[in-house]
């Protein structure tokens, strides 16, 4: 697989600026979908407010031990990674299937554009709104968590290393993972509905990890584990990208429209 991928790139050099034009076009289409934008922005923000509030409630009303409260807070770092992998399903499945529904893909494919430029463009166009929305949610989350727990804990819980690693390494990779998965799925299916459904299976590894964390099989709060998970995501992303590129079949996409 590697060999043919290389010979591919040799004959068609990737122009990054072209991918950026496609990304900007996708972003301006997204901007006009107010409800979708609202939804994307609202989910991490809601978590950013709800999770610290829940912790605060448990500390004040239920008097859970401080160690339990900090353990809980720390586990939310992984929670945001799950959201980061989930959110792209709602937009990047839209972006390729959307082109098919609007029938614009045919017009796009007759321009001198390479498969790679289209794929990278779709990745960037989906990545930017996701990362903005997740980071916004995480910033609100950290500020509110510190504000609500400072008096009880006596120190600022955030920022800390493991959250930083999750935020700056785990979350971007989780987003790219989610995007890769749904781009791959959406180049194969013809309805947004099925893109969501098949795309949702990409979250299974996250659920498995989450459950393993819950029953104390692994710790999802240690920096090392977050790094390991990120490394796993990186490998998955590379594989998914290569598969997407390899199986991005213009002819099939056009023919299977009917």
């Amino acid at each position, binding site marked *: 697989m590697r060999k043919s991928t290389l010979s591919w790139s040799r*004959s*068609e050099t990737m122009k990054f600026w*072209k991918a950026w*034009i*496609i990304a900007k*076009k996708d972003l*301006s*289409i997204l901007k*006009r*979908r107010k409800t979708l934008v609202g939804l994307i922005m609202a989910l991490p923000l809601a978590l950013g407010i709800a999770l610290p509030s829940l912790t605060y409630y448990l500390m004040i009303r239920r008097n859970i031990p401080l160690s339990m409260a900090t353990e809980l807070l720390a586990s939310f770092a992984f929670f945001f990674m799950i959201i980061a992998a989930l959110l792209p399903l709602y937009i990047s499945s839209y972006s390729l299937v959307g082109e098919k529904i*609007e*029938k*614009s*893909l*045919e*017009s*796009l*494919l*007759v*321009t*001198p*554009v390479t498969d790679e430029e289209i794929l990278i463009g779709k990745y960037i166009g989906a990545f930017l709104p996701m990362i903005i929305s997740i980071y916004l949610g995480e910033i609100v989350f950290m500020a509110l968590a510190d504000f609500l727990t400072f008096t009880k804990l006596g120190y600022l819980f955030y920022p800390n290393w493991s959250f930083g690693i999750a935020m700056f390494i785990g979350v971007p990779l989780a987003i790219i993972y989610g995007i890769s998965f749904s781009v791959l799925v959406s180049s194969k299916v013809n309805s947004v509905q099925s893109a969501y459904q098949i795309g949702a299976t990409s979250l299974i590894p996250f659920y498995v990890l989450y459950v393993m964390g819950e029953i104390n099989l692994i710790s999802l709060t240690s920096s090392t584990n977050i790094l390991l998970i990120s490394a796993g995501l990186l490998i998955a992303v590379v594989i998914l990208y290569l598969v997407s590129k390899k199986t991005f079949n*213009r*002819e099939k996409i*056009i*023919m299977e429209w009917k």
Partner: protein
Amino acid sequence: MAKTIDARNLTRIFGDTTAVDNISFSVDEGEIFGLLGPNGAGKTTTIRMLCCLISPTSGSAIIGGYNIADREGAMNIRRMIGLVPDNVGLYETLSAYDNLEFFGKMYELPDGLRRENVEKYLKLVDLWDKRDRAVGSFSKGMKQKVAIVRALIHDPKVLLMDKPTVNLDPEAAKGIRDLILQLRKDGRTVLINTHNLDEAQRMCDRIGVLKTKLIAVDTPQNLERAISGTQTVVVLEEVNDDILNAIKAVNPKDIKRDGNKLIIDVNNPEKETPVIINAIVSAGGKVISANRIGASLEEVYLKLVKE
């Protein structure tokens, strides 16, 4: 004259359907060529093969010197052609201007030229004033015009249009046809898919009648002539027995009389008609008019497609 499009034995099979069967034709530079055929005739499949969107099962085509089967060639062909797909293929939520800007950039036009062309062509189709409106709010005719501008944005030498006037009201269709005729004046080569005979006849320099196989390729006039009728209508000032007998003496296949009008059928109009007219005049007949009844392109087409 240079052949801009040269299709050789193009064939495309989908599963067990042969969509296009071994067709060969060429389109000269500056020519409007129509692929005429009923639904399912393989018109869209042919255009898609020429645009390098799908590959032929066998056969090949050369466009502007490049082969559609060759990867590098395909890239060059895409720079050289403009496609108006059978759906308009625009981003409905974006404005006409933003759509064209986007595609202009995809065609790697320098900023200045791109803006110039967007303005020039939007003005050409009378949509410059509406450039900032979302394409989704446009009528079908307006969308189709934007789709044509989209195909023109990089000044392609070759335009491929899949049913450019389908679903348009007569006025909008005329607007599009005038635009296409204008494009030929600019020296562009145009290939049009249509199932509309009248349109093909009005616009095309040559027509290829397609029904999976290419049944005939010729100018509209020659297609008509090829199967034109053998009857001639002669209108006289007055018809009398002398005249009728004089005609019968020449032995035509059939004579019908309708007042002062005679419909004369012969085997070989080129040879026999002058003799008959001569006989009428010699018998004292005064000929007001004599017209060969030609088969219309429609009859030709129906005849070809049914066979």
